[in-house]
């Protein structure tokens, strides 16, 4: 095997990889932020007694969860213009990932809402709080604490999904890695470094979210 490892070429392009990583993080952050809003609204729909909320919410979650994200990404970027919706690469990808993550986050939040005992709502009602006040002061804070572990794994997996943006030539980490691979032919080195950047970022994210979890933990 006539291949010897030489990282020099990759180090020379390391800036590009870091820029790519920064863009990956930006995409993930923007998409998850919007996704959390969609997911939360959908979760309230999923647990609603009103079928007019429950059915559409359920349909959205089922359709998105059973469709490959690459198809969604390509659809938004290449097919939506046919309907007159023209978005830039980045906007299109962020929107797609937001809608995609909304479905997964909705399931996470739904579990969290169900984990809050009904007595909490009743206690809020008994002191005269309105349903909205109960949601903001009691149910959401409790739900957030309950969902943090699964929220963190969902967020990490969504961060990894930003690599799909490479398919529509958004210059994020995977796209840059592929470019360096093709330009330098330092194939193994490029992919090792790119993977390590992903793995390291995931670990840091996981550690951060665990710290948040510890911080918010209810003392007992």
């Amino acid at each position: 095997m006539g291949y010897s490892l030489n990282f020099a070429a990759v180090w020379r392009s390391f800036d590009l990889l870091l820029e790519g990583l920064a863009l990956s993080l930006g995409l993930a952050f923007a998409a998850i932020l919007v996704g959390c809003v969609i997911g939360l609204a959908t979760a309230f729909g999923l647990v609603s007694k009103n079928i007019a909320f429950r059915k559409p919410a359920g349909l959205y979650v089922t359709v998105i969860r059973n469709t490959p994200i690459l198809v969604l990404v390509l659809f938004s970027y290449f097919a939506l213009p046919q309907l007159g919706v023209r978005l830039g690469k980045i906007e299109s990808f962020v929107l797609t990932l937001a809608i995609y993550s909304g479905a997964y986050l909705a399931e996470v939040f739904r579990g969290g809402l169900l984990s809050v005992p009904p007595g909490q709502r009743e206690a809020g009602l008994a002191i005269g709080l309105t349903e909205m006040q109960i949601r903001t002061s009691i149910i959401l804070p409790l739900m957030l604490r309950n969902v943090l572990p699964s929220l963190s794994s969902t967020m990490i997996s969504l961060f990894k999904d930003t690599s799909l943006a490479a398919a529509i030539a958004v210059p994020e980490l995977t796209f840059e890695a592929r470019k360096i691979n093709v330009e330098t032919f330092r194939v193994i080195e490029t992919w090792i470094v790119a993977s390590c950047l992903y793995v390291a970022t995931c670990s840091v994210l996981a550690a951060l979210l665990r710290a948040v979890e510890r911080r918010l933990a209810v003392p007992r």
Partner: protein
Amino acid sequence: MTQTLLEIRDLHKRYGAVEVLKGVDCTMAQGEVISIIGSSGSGKTTMLRCINMLEEFQGGSIRIDGQEIGYETVGGVRRRKKEKEIARQRAMTGMAFQQFNLFPHMTAARNVMLGLIKVRGMGRDEARSVAEKWLDRVGLLSRMDHYPGQLSGGQQQRVAIARAIAMNPKLMLFDEVTSALDPELVNEVLQVIKGLAEDGMSMLLVTHEMRFAYEVSTRVIFMNQGRIGEEGNPREMFVKPQTKRLAEFLKSSSFN
């Protein structure tokens, strides 16, 4: 002549096809302490929960201080009042629950303060001093910055009572407040309730503590199969039950 505080007329409540309250009538004067006893499934907790609209009811009316609770009849059609109005009416009563239902993510003080701030519109400082006063009253001033998870069951229930009473309700509802407690913790909670009774607080208690009902109540209501089976002065009722049902119930419960 004491003033009428609570007036329940022909209260009917169904869960689907099952009728759990089959026409309950009850009038309660200011300052009365009424214990509601009866076997499980007799409708006593349901009746209590109708008073603050934690349960909907299909027939009859409940009035507190002359105000119709939960429903209004407009043009001959009975309909549920607006959510905001119901919330305001709920705040006229305070409730303590069997499972305490303290908010686990808030300290004892913040549990008490939440309603004062959000419902009564108090500022933080004022709410905090009211919370201090009531937590002191239930003997937990030193624990006011503890979280529910750091308190014993008895302490949690006392915080829950302070949370309800701090709202300055016209009427306190107690729903089997000692049933979830270890036996050695029951007394501290009963002492708090007794103290409130001595202060002249109007109270409705659903309870299994017959000895306590006997000691603290001005009147006892025995619920049986969705109706009031018998009511009266505890001294007479417990010693000389008029109905066979009550006699059997008293025999099977721990009172003797």
